[in-house]
């Protein structure tokens, strides 16, 4: 029986250590201010208070830009942690945190990304220094003296000439709201120091990145830090990079005892959300529908700290080109600081925001050309051997098949009214590396891998692949929790890379085991990366490919949109764990539906106004349309990642379907109110 069903799985939130204290956080009530923490005279003796002075010896951290202090002496968003306490019980810690006084000296704040890049905007960070620890391999290009922590460009062909050559040009600006990941299990971490060695149990997708970043902040050798990653009750990108780990480590250092932190739901909303974005697309074509030029501009609101905003801006930039042959392309994508809670990885990693813009624009163009949106896409889709805007030659691409499957599922060609399509290309983390080890035991094998379990059942996929390679039953393979002391290095569990990368590493490890007899080690690397100034290089060694189709109806009196049917077709190459793969499609589609219809983190003066699951809606069973999907396989094909692919195409498919009924909505979520306004424009 699945231990998740029998309640035998021990989640991150359940980890305990003898003598541990519980943490609570004192959070800024203002969006931007210098803060002074005042210790109350009546603080109980068994409460440990951590103030910014206590962490003055610690370095900055941040996975792509080192811009974050363990405790903020300058608060940069409402909810920024300015002090922390540890106490014997969670309730005592929370009561103590409430008693801490904070004095604020307000600074001007900016909570809109366009205002943040306007001349004279208040600056959030004096300088944006790239991460020396290189936790994430990305060349960051800050614009000094501005709130831009990274700008990514693609320069491909000659865009001016391309537009001069175009016979039809369309242009539109699109917006997407921030969203909450809303995993059932909140963030949880526990830290313990022993003989100068730090151990952190954390529900994280990134044990090795977290170790590297903590080593930099605490000024100690990474080998003296051990990260153990128990299974997470959902993450969706929320539990990537350093979140609570530095705080509990600093508290434990001062307390001399283990310290554990578990966030409550409201705190989740000020810890990490999805990047709100503004994307402008200009697209030019010949009368026959041949695309000739495209411009994409992205303003990506990364909030108070960069986190992985530079990577998201990069991915948003190239995903906005779409899976098309376009000879002349310009992309400028900016990751921008604002005084809002930090935004980071979210299932789809920036692709959704620009696919929404790009694929809605394809339908605008089709309308201008009086051509079927399906035919327009077909005419321009990338095929094997074509050159993408990054200069890389495409291989193993099946966009045609995905698009056709989606169109057929809603009988698009028979009658396109009320129906919409979307096709997308999404990259995998490149460069990256994955390693895995296999050891023979008297009853089977132990496989060690840092691929983290967050509900995707990665362990089952590794067991199934292992059983095939080792000639044993999946049940004979044991996979311990990721542990940086014993698991071989893996870049991280993100970007739908684990089954593909670990699967290949496992093949090497099993071959090594056959040579050795007792143990084997395997490692694979995918090389590449893009030049941030030109966008040329290798965006991805392996493309995630998918399409979606939707059928909708609308109540013209109220604007209420009803999604009748939504279908996703995802290229899988070869399916390893069918049940798991199907659940990835369904989960992605459900999250896509929430993003399309109602998910939005709302703010007033920098404060989240819907930080609970009553005011912030996620899809409920009653919201489900007819939801179908398929995994496209090919004989002898390579395994393809598919953990996120079915999310980004959902909003454009629905938006395009709605547009056929007369409502051209450019902003996500597509609320009933926006539909009504659009119907009457």
């Amino acid at each position: 029986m699945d231990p998740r069903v029998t309640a035998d799985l021990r989640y991150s939130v359940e980890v305990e250590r003898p003598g541990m204290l519980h943490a609570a956080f004192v959070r800024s009530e203002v969006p931007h201010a210098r803060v002074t923490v005042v210790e109350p005279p009546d603080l109980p003796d068994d409460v440990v208070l951590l103030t910014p002075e206590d962490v003055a010896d610690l370095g900055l951290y941040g996975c792509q830009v080192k811009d974050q202090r363990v405790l903020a002496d300058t608060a940069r968003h409402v909810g920024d942690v300015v002090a922390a306490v540890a106490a014997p019980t969670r309730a005592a810690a929370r009561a103590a945190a409430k008693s801490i006084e904070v004095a604020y000296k307000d600074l001007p704040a900016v909570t809109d990304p366009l205002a943040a890049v306007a001349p004279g905007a208040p600056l959030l960070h004096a300088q944006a220094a790239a991460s020396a620890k290189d936790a994430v391999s990305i060349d960051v290009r800050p614009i000094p003296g501005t709130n831009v922590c990274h700008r990514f460009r693609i320069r491909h062909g000659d865009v001016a000439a391309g537009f001069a050559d175009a016979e039809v040009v369309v242009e539109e600006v699109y917006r997407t709201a921030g969203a909450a990941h809303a995993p059932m299990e909140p963030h949880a971490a526990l830290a313990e120091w022993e003989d100068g060695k730090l151990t952190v149990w954390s529900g994280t997708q990134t044990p090795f990145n977290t170790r590297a970043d903590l080593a930099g902040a605490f000024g100690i050798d990474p080998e003296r830090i051990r990260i153990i990653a128990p299974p997470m009750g959902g993450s969706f990108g929320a539990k990537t990079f350093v979140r609570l780990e530095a705080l509990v480590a600093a508290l434990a250092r001062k307390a001399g005892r283990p310290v554990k932190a578990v966030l409550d739901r409201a705190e989740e909303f000020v810890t990490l959300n999805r990047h709100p974005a503004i994307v402008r697309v200009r697209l030019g074509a010949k009368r026959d529908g041949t695309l000739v030029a495209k411009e994409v501009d992205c303003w990506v609101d990364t909030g108070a700290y960069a986190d992985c905003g530079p990577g998201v801006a990069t991915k948003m930039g190239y995903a906005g080109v779409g899976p098309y042959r376009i000879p002349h392309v310009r992309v400028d994508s900016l990751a921008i600081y604002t005084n809002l809670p930090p935004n980071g990885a979210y299932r789809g990693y920036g692709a959704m925001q620009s696919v929404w813009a790009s694929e809605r624009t394809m339908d605008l163009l089709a309308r201008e050309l009086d051509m079927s949106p399906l035919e327009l896409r077909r005419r321009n889709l990338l095929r094997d051997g074509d050159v993408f805007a990054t200069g890389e030659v495409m291989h193993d691409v099946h966009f045609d098949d995905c698009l056709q499957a989606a169109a057929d599922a809603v009988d698009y060609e028979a009658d396109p009214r009320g129906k919409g399509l979307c096709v997308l290309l999404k990259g995998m983390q490149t460069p990256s590396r994955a390693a895995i080890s296999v050891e023979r035991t008297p009853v089977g094998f132990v496989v060690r891998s840092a691929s983290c379990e967050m509900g995707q059942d990665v362990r089952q996929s590794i067991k199934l692949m292992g059983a095939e390679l080792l000639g044993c039953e999946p049940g004979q393979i044991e996979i311990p929790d990721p542990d940086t002391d014993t698991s071989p290095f893996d870049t991280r569990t993100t970007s739908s890379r684990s089954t593909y990368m670990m699967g290949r590493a496992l093949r090497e490890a099993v071959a090594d085991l056959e040579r050795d007899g007792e143990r084997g080690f395997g490692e694979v690397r995918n090389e590449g990366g893009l030049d941030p100034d030109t966008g040329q290089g290798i965006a991805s060694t392996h493309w995630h490919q998918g399409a979606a189709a939707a059928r909708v109806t609308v109540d013209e009196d109220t604007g209420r949109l009803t999604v009748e049917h939504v279908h996703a077709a995802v290229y899988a190459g070869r399916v390893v764990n069918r049940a798991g793969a199907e659940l990835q499609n369904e989960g992605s589609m459900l999250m896509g539906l929430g993003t399309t219809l109602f998910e939005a983190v709302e703010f007033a003066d920098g404060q989240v106004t819907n930080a609970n699951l009553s005011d912030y809606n996620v899809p409920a069973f009653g919201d489900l349309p007819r939801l179908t999907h398929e995994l496209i396989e090919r004989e002898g094909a390579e395994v393809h990642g598919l953990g996120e692919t079915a999310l980004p195409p959902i909003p454009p498919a629905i938006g395009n379907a709605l547009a056929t009924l007369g409502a051209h909505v450019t902003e996500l979520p597509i609320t009933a109110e926006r539909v009504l306004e659009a119907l009457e424009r």
Partner: protein
Amino acid sequence: MQPEWMAPTSLEEALSLRAERGDEATVLAGGTFLGILMNQGFLSPSAFLSLGAVPELRTMEVVDGELRLGAMVTHRRVEREASDWPVLARAFGLVASPRVRNVATVGGVLADADYASDPPAMLAALEARAVLRSPRGDREVSVGELILGYYETCIEPDELLVEVRVPAQPEKATYRKFRSRSAEDRPCAAVAAVNDGDKLRVVVGAVAERPQDFPDLCAGEAAEIGARYAERIEPLSDSRGSAKYRRRVIAAEVRRAVEEVAWTPA
């Protein structure tokens, strides 16, 4: 500091604690509303008066054709058991999710006076009355008298809302819940309409501080009634819709509700 916890096991005991402690102790029924407020840090009561163990408040009976709902009767029970009041069962059955309906109570939803709840508008349209009890005696108030504004009622500090009395439901009655977001969301606008043959009653919920009830507008064609309600009501703006948008929804949904109860203008 742990809040004080009082859990009387009889109505008599509950009433005496209420009279003694007044507003200093927060009355707790199902806790679905208080829970949100407390989790958000908007409320941290120093004392609770829990009604969960008071058996008299859990009765549900029909007396002389009138449905009497104890204050602690859950939404789920009304949904499942109020078979002769199908429109009331429907309104309670549309609240949030089964998890919420299993604990949220009839007394709680009225005493919270949350503008975005479903049941108050339906109870108002059915001319239900709430029984408020104190050592000074009982008084019966209509929903319109009970709910004064945002989260504000006429319940005195020594009174408890103990029962809700609902007259027999006319056959022609409807409850239309318009959600602008999830199926489990609160209404953006809700319309309760009852046609008892002689008169039409239309109450609009979730659009302003209290249920909107205008008997003087309930004449004429459905579309006219809808337009007049949309004009008369001063809607609020929240994340479920702006005031301007709500006016549009009110006009459409009132018209539809009136059509559903087959109102024929005299």
